[in-house]
């Protein structure tokens, strides 16, 4: 799979559990769980530098400054036994050489920039004293400390309530406009993609099956999986008695079918799909897909 991102651009990564969204993100920062997983090939370039050839030490600095991550559960990024202030100061000292009062005031400034009220007091709070939305803001504050060139947000609002989710997405957009970082936004919620992303990559069984600008992909989806996904979602005001369901189950990655992985569930399946995996083809400029329906005639 391949994709590229420009400055201040947001790429949505959508797909079901096990489709490889999170693995893609972890590969970018070289954090795939070893020895179970290994990056067997490819290149990851950040501002032209290949991240896969960096030493572990260099990589750690890059993770601290240039690439930041926000995960679904803020508690997986926060340590419950240290105060917010202590946890925020550590990377500031390590990567920015800030100590003492300078580190404290920078930490407070960062909390303020994610709109946490009375930031100086909050530095003394422990994670359990904050609400889920506030914790996720703290993680956001730590993420933008770099400031990063790339922010990877893996389901950052899935554990938040709806109105808090809307606040948080607005905040991420504002921070992006201010710091101009590129963003990879992993979600299974196509509504969020429609609101926050410029382009979207649809993943199925470890591959990007379709990649294109959000509007184009939502209005004229090329891949049958994207089409089925969009059709299966209940919509306001367009009630149908029955939703268009996708038959079958997502495939087992250890036992992928030969040919196209979606073939067993595809309404438009042809003989060729079961035999041969489709190559990446352009459905339009900037809009690619992996489907035999769009492959140029042989």
């Amino acid at each position, binding site marked *: 799979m391949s994709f590229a991102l420009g400055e201040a651009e947001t790429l949505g990564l959508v797909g079901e*559990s096990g489709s490889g969204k999170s693995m893609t993100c972890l590969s970018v920062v070289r954090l795939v769980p070893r020895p179970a997983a290994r990056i067997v090939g490819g290149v990851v370039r950040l501002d032209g530098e290949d991240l896969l050839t960096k030493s572990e030490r260099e990589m750690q600095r890059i993770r601290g400054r240039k690439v930041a991550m926000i995960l679904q559960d803020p508690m997986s990024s926060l340590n419950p036994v240290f105060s917010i202030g202590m946890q925020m100061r550590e990377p500031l000292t390590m990567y920015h050489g800030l100590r003492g009062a300078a580190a404290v005031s920078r930490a407070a400034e960062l909390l303020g920039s994610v709109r946490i009220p009375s930031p100086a007091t909050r530095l003394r709070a422990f994670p359990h004293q904050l609400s889920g939305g506030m914790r996720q803001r703290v993680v956001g504050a730590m993420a933008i400390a770099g400031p990063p060139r790339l922010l990877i947000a893996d389901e950052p609002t899935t554990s938040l309530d709806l*109105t808090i989710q809307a606040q948080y997405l*607005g905040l991420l957009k504002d921070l992006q406009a201010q710091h101009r970082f590129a963003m990879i936004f992993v979600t299974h919620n196509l*509504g969020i993609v429609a609101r926050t992303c410029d382009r979207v990559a649809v993943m199925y069984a470890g591959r990007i099956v379709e990649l294109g600008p959000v509007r184009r992909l939502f209005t004229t989806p090329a891949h049958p999986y994207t089409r089925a996904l969009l059709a*299966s979602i*209940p*919509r306001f005001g367009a009630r149908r008695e029955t939703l268009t369901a996708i038959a079958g189950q997502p495939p087992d990655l250890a036992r992928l079918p030969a040919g196209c992985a979606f073939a067993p569930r595809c309404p438009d399946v042809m003989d060729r799909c079961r035999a041969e995996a489709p190559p990446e083809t352009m459905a339009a400029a900037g809009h690619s897909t992996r489907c035999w329906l769009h492959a140029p005639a042989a």
Partner: protein
Amino acid sequence: MPPPPDAAARHVTPLLEAHALTKHFIVRRGALGWSTALVRAVEAVSFTIEAGTTLGLVGESGCGKTTTSKLILGLERPTAGTIRFEGSDVHALGRAGEREYRRFVQAVFQDPYASLDPRMRVATIVAEPLVINSDLDATGRRRRVAELLDVVGLPARAGTLYPHEFSGGQRQRIAIARALALSPKLIVLDEPVSALDVSIRAQVLNLLTELQKRLGVSYLFIAHDLAAVGHMSHTIAVMYLGRIVELGDADAVALRPQHPYTRALFAAAMPVDLDAPREEITLAGEVPSPLAPPAGCAFHPRCPFAMDRCAVEAPALRTEAGRLVACHLY
């Protein structure tokens, strides 16, 4: 959305009537638990569920949805208020009556991985409610289980397998089969598809719709996914800090919400349609602690339209634009 099954039947006794349902909890505070505080989890909540229809219950965490569903399931006793089932007060029925009531009201929960015992075969899981609550003998139970598996679209041999041999969507079908075992009249669906993959959700929602049409069962549908609630429900109730703030026809509430909270909630719901007309209301702040709800209208500190009156006087539910709304704007 299917039309309500029988318009004439609307004036007959509704299947379930909750009247001024209230549940307060006393929580212990402090390291030793010497001081206590009162949580008004559910405050004077009233609604009706007609036979064969779905009531959607929406709101954010802590709004009282789950407590309401526990009251309906008989897992909690209300502090005040009544639940009438087919006309009779559930809590005045006595032990035998309450047991009978629980047969008629079943539940399907969010996580089909947690709600099915991993050590039991599917047939045993589905048959479990029949052992105590029916007169069926072993043969009768086997026949009923086969029937139920068929109804939810699982192959007959599914009964001999264990839950871990099924995917999330299929497990939820097993949970639905178990809920249907005693031919309930109402099923509480608490986030029934949230744990499922996007491509599987439509299958399960379709199954639920089809079962309602075939069996005439009513649903109390609780979910975060507002589009799914809109799709499934005939009536929608919106809760905020223990109270219903808007209640009415599902189309009216979802497409033309009136209460500022409902408007913000549906504005935050992020429709997939890029050109869907939507209101831009992003609420400031967070839901206040139910331990110290604001005076007056509980929503006023976050409300973009708050007036002086809102901080003092709690608004009552009044009819506005064909539904009930609790807001001083109307």
